[in-house]
């Protein structure tokens, strides 16, 4: 009937499939780990806990307190945090790429990860007496304010200025971070810092799930619903304005929301790279660049991706653990190269 409906697969079907894939991934990932636990035992433990939350359920965990703790205190919060962080970073990345019309944009564009790193090393190295996630979030917010102020200081905030201001802030914070590490790091603190800088989900607990999950559900959903606006942005600021969008205010607002979302995620997991950059591109390859499909799908697939990346990070070298950022970089870099190679012939198409 209409040109639009000539899409091979409807949006709803794709979202449903992606959601199922995520659910299955979470369910399977939680049974994988260095400790030897049978899948059925793991699931039973989770169900028992959920029942206990609802008021019913056994008083004593079937697995014994310690092994039950492995499931409920270590594995499940970690897998859920991975899903939340993956979803959030993917959406944030897609939005940043749309806002700046730049395919190389990622959630950390405003210098967020560098600012958060500075906050983190302040705690890890200088021993500032603040909770690590709080310090990291504060650092991200400071970087965001600095970058946006710098970008907007000359009047209207444009994509080019945003990118450059973000770069400037990122470099400054990175210099500060390097200085603090070089000057003050003692003994083994290098390892902790490195794990944080690479991005790690180790130690993710239920508060982390709440922070990351809350940020994704509240802020991420809000962003994902801005698909039409971002599509309009793709045509340039003039066209977007002619379509009735308040370009300046919309851009400021969305940048701020992305920054807050990313700040919350980085506070919990450190700066995990490549997810925000690569996932939207990978999804575009499959379903095209229309943001109304791209953002929700990126969220679901980003969540699934990070769940599996983290599972690999904690089992490939077991009993040793890798920071998950190393795994995403290993996976992300070749994928990125592949994407660039595939696009080499499409003249001017930088999706």
């Amino acid at each position, binding site marked *: 009937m209409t040109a639009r409906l000539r899409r091979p697969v409807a949006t709803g079907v794709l979202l449903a499939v992606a959601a199922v894939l995520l659910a299955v991934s979470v369910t399977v990932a939680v049974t994988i*780990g*260095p*400790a*030897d636990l049978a899948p059925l035992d793991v699931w039973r433990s989770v169900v028992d806990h959920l029942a206990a939350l609802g008021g019913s359920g056994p008083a004593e965990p079937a697995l014994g*307190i*310690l*092994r039950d*703790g*492995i499931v409920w*205190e*270590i*594995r499940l919060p970690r897998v859920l945090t991975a899903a939340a962080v993956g979803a959030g970073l993917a959406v944030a990345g897609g939005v940043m790429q749309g806002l700046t019309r730049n395919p190389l944009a990622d959630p950390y564009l405003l210098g967020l990860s560098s600012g958060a790193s500075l906050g983190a090393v302040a705690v890890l190295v200088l021993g500032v007496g603040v909770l690590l996630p709080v310090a990291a979030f504060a650092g991200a917010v400071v970087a965001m304010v600095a970058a946006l102020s710098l970008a907007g200081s000359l009047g209207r905030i444009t994509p080019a200025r945003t990118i450059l201001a973000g770069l400037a802030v990122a470099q400054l914070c*990175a210099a500060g*971070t*390097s200085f603090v*590490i*070089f000057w003050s790091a*003692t*003994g*083994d*603190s290098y*390892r*902790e*810092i*490195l*794990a944080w*800088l690479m991005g*790690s989900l*180790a*130690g993710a*607990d*239920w508060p982390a799930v709440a922070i990351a999950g809350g940020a994704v559900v509240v802020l991420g959903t809000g962003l994902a619903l801005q698909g039409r606006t971002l599509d309009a942005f793709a045509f340039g600021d003039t066209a977007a304005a002619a379509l009735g969008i308040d370009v300046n205010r919309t851009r400021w607002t969305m940048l701020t929301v992305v920054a807050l979302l990313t700040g919350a995620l980085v506070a919990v997991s450190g700066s995990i790279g490549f997810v925000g950059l690569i996932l939207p591109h990978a999804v575009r390859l499959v379903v095209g660049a229309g943001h109304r499909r791209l953002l929700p799908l990126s969220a679901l697939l980003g969540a699934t991706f990070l769940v599996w990346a983290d599972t690999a990070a*904690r089992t490939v070298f*077991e*009993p*040793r*653990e890798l*920071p998950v950022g190393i795994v995403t970089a290993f996976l992300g870099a070749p994928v990125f190269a592949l994407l660039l190679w595939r696009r080499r012939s499409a003249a001017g198409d930088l999706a």
Partner: protein
Amino acid sequence: MRVAAQSSARRLAGLALVVAVSAPLTACAGAGSAAEPSTSPASPATTAPSADAYPITLDNCGFEVTFTQAPQRVVTIKSSTTEMLLALGVGDRIVGTGFPDGPVPPEYAAAAADLPVLSDRVPSSEVALEAEPDLVYAGWESTLSADGAGDRATLADLGVATYVSPSACKDPAYQPERLTFDGVFDEITEIAGVLGVPAAAEALVAEQRTALADLAPDDRGLTALWYSSGTDIPYVGAGIGAPQMIMDAVGLTNIAAGVTDTWASFSWEQVAADDPDVIVLVDAAWNSAEAKRELLATNPATANLTAVLNERYLVVPFAATEAGVRNVPAAVDLAGQLADVDLG
């Protein structure tokens, strides 16, 4: 983490130039003072080195070092090396120390009181050379680099010998497959030979061997976690280093023994699965045993470990966990703490 290594190197090149100009003066001064044999009042067992013990040529971590006489002006980096000289009774030859890991044991406190401290961290090349040493004795190989105390070849050209604790060699060909007390004793003997005090080493080694022999390992077959640092990802003593050596001596089974490394990153999940009977906490100034105790008790992932619930903790000072003269006393002390652990 982007430490500007390249600009450091350029800075060092500049420094090296300055140093190279003043080097001849250093070499002359060094040569002059080495002419007389030295006796240390702290250890009557020290004798003047016999003339035909030298020259001594060693392959130290893949770097060939030749000593034509006993070093008289030593810069020590890391507590293990400082304490080594103090234990051998030649503490008066120390002209500068760097990067201490903690206070020296009480028996050396008096001798250590006046030692000039060059730096809290690794001293820079210029600072190290200002002390006009003829030997830089390092506990970690990484401290002997261009942006540390100096590149080994560069220092050698300036007439400064360098020596790294053999157990700390990074090159797999030189890293001991498994650290043993015999290995530690060999180190003591080797450095004592270089310093010209072999008899002091003999006495020290004999003393430590006796202490070790008297040590009765715990026979309850207990498992242990050697928890060094790290919060989300624990950094633990693994299978081939000093922690393993000490745990073997006191009769503890290391849950990370299967990891072929000196220390390694581990996972709390594995710790929970293994549920060790006791936890050895390393006490360092930057990461105290108390802080680790607190962490273990409050982290829901570890709060239910048997050792945490029953507070079965053993404490060992950080400096004692590097290969050196403190390993045996640490093992003895640990054995004593272990004997007090009641499994009831």
